[in-house]
């Protein structure tokens, strides 16, 4: 029986950096999503583009907020 120490999947010291960058990217994509929603007219809008932008933004915001929680000491 050998014991192997378990560490976190991502080194703990990277959490703040990851949080900042992923949230920044996520917020930029979110901004572009809302700009697109507000400027394009109803007929010209493409649902696929809306959904992909939303999905990309939510992946970045999701991981970004997770790392933000971890970096601030809320270990989920």
């Amino acid at each position, binding site marked *: 029986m050998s014991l192997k*120490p378990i560490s976190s999947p*991502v080194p703990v010291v990277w959490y703040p950096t990851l949080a900042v960058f992923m949230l920044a990217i996520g917020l930029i994509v979110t901004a572009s999503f809302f700009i697109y929603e507000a400027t394009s*007219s109803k007929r*010209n809008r493409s649902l696929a583009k809306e*959904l992909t932008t*939303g999905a990309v933004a*939510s992946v970045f*915001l999701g991981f970004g907020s*997770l790392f933000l929680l971890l970096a601030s000491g809320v*270990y989920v």
Partner: protein
Amino acid sequence: MKRGGGRGASSRSSLCILISIIVAAALLSTPVASDLVISKLDRRVDLTSQIVRITSTLKVKCTGPEPVPEMLVAYPDHQAKFMNLLLSTATEGKGKPTGSVSIRPVQPNGVPPAHTWFLLTFPKQLETGESIIINVFAAFTRVLQLFPEKITQSENQMVVFQDSGYYLSPYLVKVQSLSFKLPEGKIESYTKLENSKLSKNEIKYGPYENIPAFQQSPVAIHFVNNLPFAVAKELVREIEVSHWGNVQVTEHYNLFHGGAQSTGEFSRLDYQARDRGAAAFRSLVAKLPARAHSIYYRDAIGNISTSNIYGDNTQTLLQIEPRYPMFGGWKTSFTIGYGLPLHEYLFYSDGKRLLNVSFGCPIDDVVVEKLIVKIVLPEGSTDIFAAVPFPVQQSEETKFSHLDMVGRPVVVLEKRNVVPEHNLPLQVSYKFSVFSLLREPLMLITGFFLLFVACITYMNADLTISKYSPSYLAKLQWDEVQAAIQQVQNIIYRSLTIHDKLEGSLRDLSRTGDVQVCKAVRKTADGSFKELSKELKPLLTFLQSSAQALPIFSKVDDLVAKERDLQEKVMLKHSTVVDSYEKKSGRDIENKIILIQQKISTLRKELDELLDIIDEI
């Protein structure tokens, strides 16, 4: 003859039954008198804290013909009632450990009352003439009787400890000695037997020789003990494991001073300036692991800033001061918390995760009346098993924390009367899949995505109630017009980029002189222009027919016309330049195109203005 024989047989059989009953009775009751002799006995009683620790070293010899597997030890009831821990080891000859000694409580016959008996089973049977050294360690709390029970601020706290000067044993004790270690040299009184001796902070009794079995001689010591009698009525330790890299420990203390009750008033001046209050304690020190981080100390009103952290490579010491000095009977409750790096406490072995953390209270010399250790495992852990080196009460519960859906499994371990000797590592093994680790980010992502989907639905939904009202219809038409204008704009932008491409090809030409490439670019541009004008046609007819577009149609038309003009000019410029390159008459290119160039720039300017105007609509 026959009859007589019958009678004789029956009387013999009844005798046999009687004898067997006697033998059975003798076997059932644990034998007290035996062939063991304690050839040397040394008892050391440590009274230097609120916990009384008695270490007895017994050299046991077997003198009878039969091998002996076990022996009896006794503690008086007034001590045994408060016994927290009883450990025993056996050593052979020169301190070489030979194995563990199992202990179980028994109730033998024919022994003096008011004693609790324990049966120690040797690692192996003791043969005739052999001897073995048995170490017995026992820890007691609350056996130090406070005398007086109430003191004022300036008085010392005094306690009485009672024991027997001779070791109570069912065996003959050849040589025995007893020593008491005291916290400080201040002694009110102590029982003087023959051969008793008081040195600085130690009282020695003995050696006494050939004390027969069951002989006792009470001994009492009345002495000053001003050490902190910190007792935790309840301590809840919550150890929360996160596979994202942390083991969070939170400890809720409910502490009181278990020493002599404080009477009279408390004077802060006397306490601080005249140093009165020897029985009170000001601070406690918690020994935390070396890599503990994010340490905090707070109570119900908030953070307590009177704390200090220092330490070295092996441990972190957290010195905490309650908000007031603790006098006898005074209470305080607070919380300390710290994080530990995951890789030092969590291991992987045989498909299972193994958590290795310490059980007891990290503060020195605190007696815990009720210790509850809660081990919170991550959501999705299964097959949980906790291994503790001593008996505890185990149960399971669920805890809801951040981003939980079904709750985290919690192993609850409960033990009463815990002393620092119980501070041993415990192991919890469980199964956990890596997918469960991704549950939290997936939840967050889903949450954000639902927000976006809600936005999309709201923007695309038609929430008008009356679908046939003129204003609604007008709005619909206006939307169509807007869409058409946007498309027209798009087409214009696309053709403008083609213009830029053509200009770029001209610049390339002046550098490389490759006419063929330039021509190819023009050809593709020509094709794209045709396509764009094809796309433009239906839009323009729609805009022309639509009533709503009337006010801006002129502008759009103007825009399209200007663009076409510009397009022609650009093509003209392009062909002129290419032609002159082909004829190698490079000199007058500039002159030839200067007029065209002027027109192009004015048209471009007008076009940009028009686009701006349309944008504003």
